[in-house]
């Protein structure tokens, strides 16, 4: 237990610190309600406007609506950008102090990123469930609501897959962090990540709705594991072997990125230059 103490403490401290920012969570929630509503309306226009194509669609309108609310509620799990604390540390030079801690450098940053991510996730997902899962049906708009999981087994598999989504997203955030340290600049890589993440996670459009020719490739690429795979498990679009295949992919990408990140961080740190002072 003592071996894990530093990492648990670093996670908790980051989590508790981030939970203080209630205004940011509230602002994020309202933005996500807005985007969610827009997405739902666009999907409704497509599905209702072309009933034949909609009938052939691999996911139903109601599933696509649930997908949208999941995507908005789980927005914090998207690896949009590196950990701002690392970026600030690079700018101010305080990452020197991280090198002075008697802990594994990769693991320390990884758990901090996890604390940062989950602390933003919890309030937003709770508010989104209240709004889209409970309030919408209560005002008679149940058809546009966030539906419960398709079954108990889907719910359990989703819990596992969403945990893996967070692990994978943190591993991707770590790769971004390392690029930030190597280039001494967070803006470039963060801007580059935005469109990639929006498209390849399924946030813009559920990956199942893309043309058949690219669907397999979209399923196999790493960003699917941060949103699309757990979502499809949630509403029963991926079941049985396909669900386990998705979970297997999530594990594969997570392990690969962690191994890659550890190796790369070691190299970047050995070339680290801390100037001035």
């Amino acid at each position, binding site marked *: 237990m003592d071996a894990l*103490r530093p990492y648990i403490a670093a996670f908790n401290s980051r989590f508790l*610190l981030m939970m203080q920012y209630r205004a940011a969570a509230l602002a994020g929630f309202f933005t996500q309600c807005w985007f969610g509503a827009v997405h739902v309306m666009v999907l409704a226009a497509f599905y209702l406007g072309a009933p034949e194509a909609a009938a052939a669609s691999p996911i139903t309108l109601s599933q696509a609506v649930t997908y949208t609310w999941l995507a908005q509620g789980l927005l914090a799990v998207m690896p949009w950008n590196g950990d701002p604390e690392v970026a600030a540390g690079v700018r101010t030079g305080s990452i*020197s102090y991280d090198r002075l801690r*008697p802990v594994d450098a990769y693991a320390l940053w990884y758990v901090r990123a996890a604390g940062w991510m989950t602390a933003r996730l919890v309030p937003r997902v709770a508010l989104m469930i209240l709004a889209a899962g409970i309030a919408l049906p209560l005002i008679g708009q149940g058809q546009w609501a966030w539906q419960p999981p398709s079954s108990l087994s889907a719910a359990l598999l989703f819990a596992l897959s969403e945990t893996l989504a967070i692990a994978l997203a943190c591993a991707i955030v770590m790769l971004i962090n390392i690029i930030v340290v190597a280039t001494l600049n967070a803006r470039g890589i963060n801007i580059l990540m935005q469109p990639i993440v929006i498209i390849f996670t399924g946030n813009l459009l559920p990956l199942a709705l893309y043309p058949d020719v690219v669907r397999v490739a979209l399923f196999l690429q790493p960003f699917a594991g941060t949103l699309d795979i757990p979502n499809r498990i949630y509403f029963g679009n991926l079941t049985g072997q396909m669900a386990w295949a998705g979970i297997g992919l999530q594990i594969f990408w997570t392990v690969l990125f962690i191994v890659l990140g550890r190796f790369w961080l070691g190299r970047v740190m050995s070339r680290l230059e*801390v100037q001035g*002072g």
Partner: protein
Amino acid sequence: MPQILVQDLAKTYRVAERDPGMLGAVRGLVRRRWRTVEALKDVSFSLERGELLGFIGPNGAGKSTTIKILSGILRPDGGRVEIEGLVPYADRIKHVARIGVVFGQRTQLWWDLPVIDGFDLLRDIYRVDPQRYKATRDELVAMLRLEKLLDQPVRQLSLGQRMRAEIAAALLHEPSILFLDEPTIGLDAPSKLAVREFVKKLNQERGVTVLLTTHDMHDIEALAQRVIVIGHGQVLADSPFETLRANVLAERRLFVDFAGDAPALDLPGAEVRNRDGRSLELAFDPRVTSAPALIAAITARHAVEDIHVEQPAIEEVIAKFYDLHGANEA
């Protein structure tokens, strides 16, 4: 076996250069020019357990680079470092558990966290036994007078308060060596005194080895038994501070206020440095002529209202030393 052994340390940086202005920026996109800066050329010294060493030198001399290598943050390009039998950059995790480091220009405490939460987090990161941590923390809090600051977020502290908290933070895991990189920078006089007093106590009573860099010569005078002067990445001198002072500048100053206008004086071994109405400032070398002899010679011939002797300020000693070695900032 010394506690800290440094041999032939060398470190170079590569700095991207570009011509000024828009055109230079565009050219820099296509072809980047690199300039190599030799931060350290050939630095060697050793330190015994319990010593208090002051590191001085102009900006860019290599002081901070040396500290960063000794603390395991940077990897040198050449030479060897061994601290308590470990190579800092190779055995980083083991090494850093035994040292404490304070960078005066950076903060290791968490800006938005109360001081005490930051301390608790460090306790877990260094895996300090909770009982032992409590005793160490309470002692540091008392010595550095932090009682009233503990539940304040770090961002609300004054620089002096923050520096005291930073020093406590660096010692919670009871390191045997403390590196202080410009710990008094920007502090007011009482805060500087508090820091000096604490460091001295820590060194004398706990036997903690201290390696300190500073631009404040009063820090050195108050603290360091031994001084290393570094310039252009090389050790220029390594000696007790008094030896340094005696060797480099034995000169004394004699300030005389006359009853009337200051006269023209021609005294062997003394030289007029400044003349202002009825006042004169004379420089003399006590190895050539003594202060009493000089004063006797002046008062014998002129009516004098006031007279006093000064040692040159330590800053001057050092500035002169840098000049002598051509070590001023490039």
